């Protein structure tokens, strides 16, 4: 053994070690192996999801300010919650959010279902049209926000010229993003343009899941197309429509990026949705404790809606 060269000794040691390690791993139960594989994921989840959530809950009860980290924090109890839930400005932001959520969901559902109904008819070139319709959904919200800002320009924007062509009004006579009446609708239009294809996809899945024999039986019973739509198509696609409504509702309740790029919450606070108010409180006023409490209120709302969403999803799955 002593006459072995250095490299041979290393190889020899490696050969000696490897079977031991392998035997030890081979000796682990399936349960232990499963834990071994999922432990890094659980640690990562705890570090980047659960810990910040618990920390935010703690901060929401204190006067902590991120720009004055050295100042001692004072426990305030539920003061911030009370302050937020009695503040007319926050209530107004919630109403702006409600306007945005309700109108986008209604428009996207009606248009999405209509498009899905048309695409489901499998006319000539329907594959190409499906791809074209899906294009806006594939774009980044940052890109969409930027190019719709150009489209809404009163002087050079295409949108104003299209409206001028159909209504006869001068193209530069109105500003979609600068007008207090029009700006809430401007963000609704952009969101509907971007996310209607998504609702269409979900509705299309619902329509394609309806078996043909039900329509054949209805044909035998001489049911009109109108009757078939109301008695077969709509009830059977309804769980999928509900799913789309819930998903878009939750997403739009949290909407930040697109609105921030398009209007930044303005003019005034007419498009200041809840997320924009939260961002202003957290990173402009640096009221970290206050904004943490606001974030927890929004989180509980979204979590509650997500529970309903999961329930609807299970209903769809069980079909």
């Amino acid at each position, binding site marked *: 053994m002593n006459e072995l060269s250095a490299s041979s000794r290393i190889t020899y040691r490696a050969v000696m070690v490897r079977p031991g390690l392998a035997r030890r791993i081979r000796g682990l139960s399936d349960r232990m192996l499963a834990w071994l594989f999922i432990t890094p994921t659980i640690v990562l989840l705890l570090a980047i999801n659960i810990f910040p959530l618990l920390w935010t809950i703690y901060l929401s009860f204190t006067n902590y300010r991120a720009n004055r980290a050295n100042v001692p924090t004072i426990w305030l109890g539920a003061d911030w919650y009370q302050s937020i*839930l*009695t503040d007319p400005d926050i*209530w107004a932001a919630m109403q702006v959010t409600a306007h945005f959520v309700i109108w986008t969901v209604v428009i996207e559902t009606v248009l999405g279902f209509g498009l899905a109904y048309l695409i489901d008819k499998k006319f000539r070139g329907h594959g190409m049209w499906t791809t074209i319709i899906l294009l806006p959904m594939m774009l980044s919200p940052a890109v969409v926000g930027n190019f719709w800002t150009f489209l809404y320009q009163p002087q050079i924007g295409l949108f104003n010229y299209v409206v001028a062509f159909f209504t006869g009004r001068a193209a530069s006579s109105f500003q979609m993003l600068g007008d207090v009446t029009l700006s809430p609708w401007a963000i609704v239009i952009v969101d509907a343009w971007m996310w209607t294809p998504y609702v269409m996809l979900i509705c299309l899945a619902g329509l394609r899941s309806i078996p043909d024999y039900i329509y054949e039986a209805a044909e035998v019973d001489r049911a009109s197309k109108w009757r078939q739509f109301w008695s077969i198509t709509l009830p059977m696609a309804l769980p999928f429509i509900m799913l789309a409504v819930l998903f878009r509702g939750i997403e739009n309740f949290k909407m930040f990026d697109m609105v921030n790029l398009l209007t930044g919450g303005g003019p005034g606070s007419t498009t200041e949705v809840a997320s924009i108010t939260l961002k202003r409180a957290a990173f402009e006023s640096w009221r970290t404790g206050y904004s943490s409490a606001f974030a927890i209120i929004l989180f509980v709302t979204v979590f*509650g809606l997500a*529970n*309903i969403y999961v329930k609807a999803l299970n209903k769809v799955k069980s079909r």
Partner: protein
Amino acid sequence: MSVDLTPSIARRGLADRILRRAPLEAIATTIIAAGVVMLMQPLSLTLYSWSFATTLFGTVMFTIVSKVRE
């Protein structure tokens, strides 16, 4: 000696009928939906003030009742 041949039907009490997952989940879902509506309605500041408590109660209730037997 007479033998009772009628099949014995297990009588389910009111608690058994109510304490099942489906109706309890439906109640929790309704409370959550009511909380969300209260949060975003434009009519009453008092309703808005109670919205968070309502949503939180509904969410906690949903989490608990989803563990109840079918």
